[in-house]
């Protein structure tokens, strides 16, 4: 896709040359270190258990906030500064602009989370080897989740006039995506079946836990994530296109 790699490189450079990003990276390292140590102690030194625990609460909480902070400026700020007009009159497609930004954010998030597999490597050196197959699938799953949350962030950024509002919208959407499946458990009576059907379609955590977390790669779960990512990318491209119609 024309221009994708050029946009991706620029966005990555923008992320890695920004002091804020390095602050976020450092904060993530501390966050991961604290929780991994806590989980490791709570599991009695069982590395695989600690790793699994890391990919439940801490992962989702971190990505729900970190992805919006990374993506909030990517479209809304460029709209304000006029850079969007520059990009959208350059010989690159709207989809290349969105995908370049999406992949840049995903790469940053995955790199930030890679400290967890590094802790696993440290445990290996210390004589407690983890299940590397499981670590690899968990890492792959994190890449899918990071892509999805980055996509949601880009949709919010494209729909908002200011980065702060974009971050607020994206965090809200991420939390809703995590909380709504839990809420369906409270539905009773004739609506229960429908609520469960909806939960099955939106429960990103359950699809992660049913596949990547356990070390299994199931095509059904891959398709589930691919469909969600496709949807948010489509929305982001359409919203970007709608900027052309705004005055």
């Amino acid at each position, binding site marked *: 896709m*024309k*221009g994708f790699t*050029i946009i991706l490189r*620029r966005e990555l*450079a*923008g992320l890695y*040359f*920004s002091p804020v990003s390095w602050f976020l990276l450092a904060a993530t390292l501390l966050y991961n270190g604290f929780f991994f140590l806590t989980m490791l102690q709570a599991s009695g030194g069982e590395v695989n258990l600690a790793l699994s625990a890391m990919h439940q609460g801490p992962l989702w909480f971190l990505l729900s906030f970190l992805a919006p902070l990374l993506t909030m400026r990517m479209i809304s700020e460029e709209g304000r*500064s*006029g*850079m969007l*007009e*520059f990009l*959208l*009159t*350059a*010989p*690159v*497609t709207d989809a290349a602009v969105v995908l370049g930004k999406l992949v840049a954010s995903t790469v940053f998030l995955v790199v930030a989370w890679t400290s967890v597999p590094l802790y696993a490597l440290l445990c290996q050196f210390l004589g407690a080897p983890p299940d590397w197959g499981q670590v690899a699938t968990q890492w792959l799953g994190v890449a899918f989740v990071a892509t999805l949350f980055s996509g949601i962030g880009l949709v919010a950024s494209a729909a908002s006039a200011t980065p702060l509002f974009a971050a607020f919208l994206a965090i809200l959407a991420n939390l809703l995506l995590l909380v709504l499946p839990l809420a369906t458990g409270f539905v009773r009576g004739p609506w229960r079946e429908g609520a469960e059907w909806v939960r099955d379609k939106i429960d990103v955590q359950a699809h992660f836990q049913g596949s990547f977390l356990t070390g299994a790669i199931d095509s059904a779960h891959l398709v589930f994530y691919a469909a969600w990512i496709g949807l948010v990318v489509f929305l982001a491209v359409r919203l970007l296109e709608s900027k*052309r*119609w705004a*005055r």
Partner: protein
Amino acid sequence: MILVQNLIRRFGSLTAVDGIDFEIGAGEVVGFLGPNGAGKSTTLRILAGFLPATRGRVVVAGHDVLTESMEVRRRIGYLPEAVPLYRDHRVEEMLLFQGRLHGLSRREARRRAGEVLERVGMGERSRSIIGRLSKGQRQRIGLAVALLPDPEVLLLDEPTSGLDPLQRIEVRKLLGELAADRTVLLSSHILPEVEAVAPRVIVLHRGRIVADGTNQELVEALGGRSHVRFEAVVGDPLEAQRLLLQLPGVRSVREEGTAGIHRGFRIDADGDVREDVGALAAQRGWAIRELSWQRPTLEQLFLRLALDLDPLEGEPGGEPVPVETPASPQESVQLELPVAGESVAPQAPGPAPTLNPFQPPPPPAT
């Protein structure tokens, strides 16, 4: 090189561009002139492929903007009014980014970056952080970015907006150089800029083209004909007026007040009649204080638009029709534009029925 046919762009109920047509040939330099909100930026954005048109056809460099947008984007250099630059980038990084977007190899982009930076006079600032440059320097970098892919067509929206007078002169000079080897369409509401750079001017007002031609054609089309200004000690002003009117080619003579013992006259003629007037003055022994050729400027046309005096008044069809200069002197007073050297400040309406702020004060009763 640029063909625009019946272009319409609406934003909800607002019609920003209202059925405009024009054609610009290869190598032409054209200025888009009009007050704020006239539709200049919207038209440029449509030409650049950023905004889709509501209706109409736009062809740039032989490609339809709507159906062959990518081809058009490869062939244009577009500088929006808010110069789009990544402020945290170094100048050369921004230029390399633009080059890579246009499919240049890294080496080629670097070579072009050096060339265009030299061209805009910023060769020594390639390592500067863009955010630390002055507004004028950023404007030049914006121009360099637009020029980098060596575009066939250059679209510049208010290229000197926000610059100080010195910076404006520099950018204007640069635009003059750029115009030598490519098609340029630049918009501005600053008249000297357009007059200095573009031989042809398209005047937009309320989304419609109200005039299209060279500077002189425009001012003449809108009733601002050149005339001779004559001031001398003539004795009997009525006799002088009669004699002047008898000169060949003179259509009207109007007295324009007195300064001490000198009488001023405005002589409208088919050509420059200064020699005939001078000969008559010598023959009659009139002591001349002024004998000059007064040429109206585009500025007056623009002020007329800016003050919301519709140049198309009385032309419901909306076509850019030249305003005829009527034959009778009285009508001439009502239609004429001020000339260079006259005050262009709006004045209170005089006894004449039209509310023309440019109408000169009535001559004193004799």
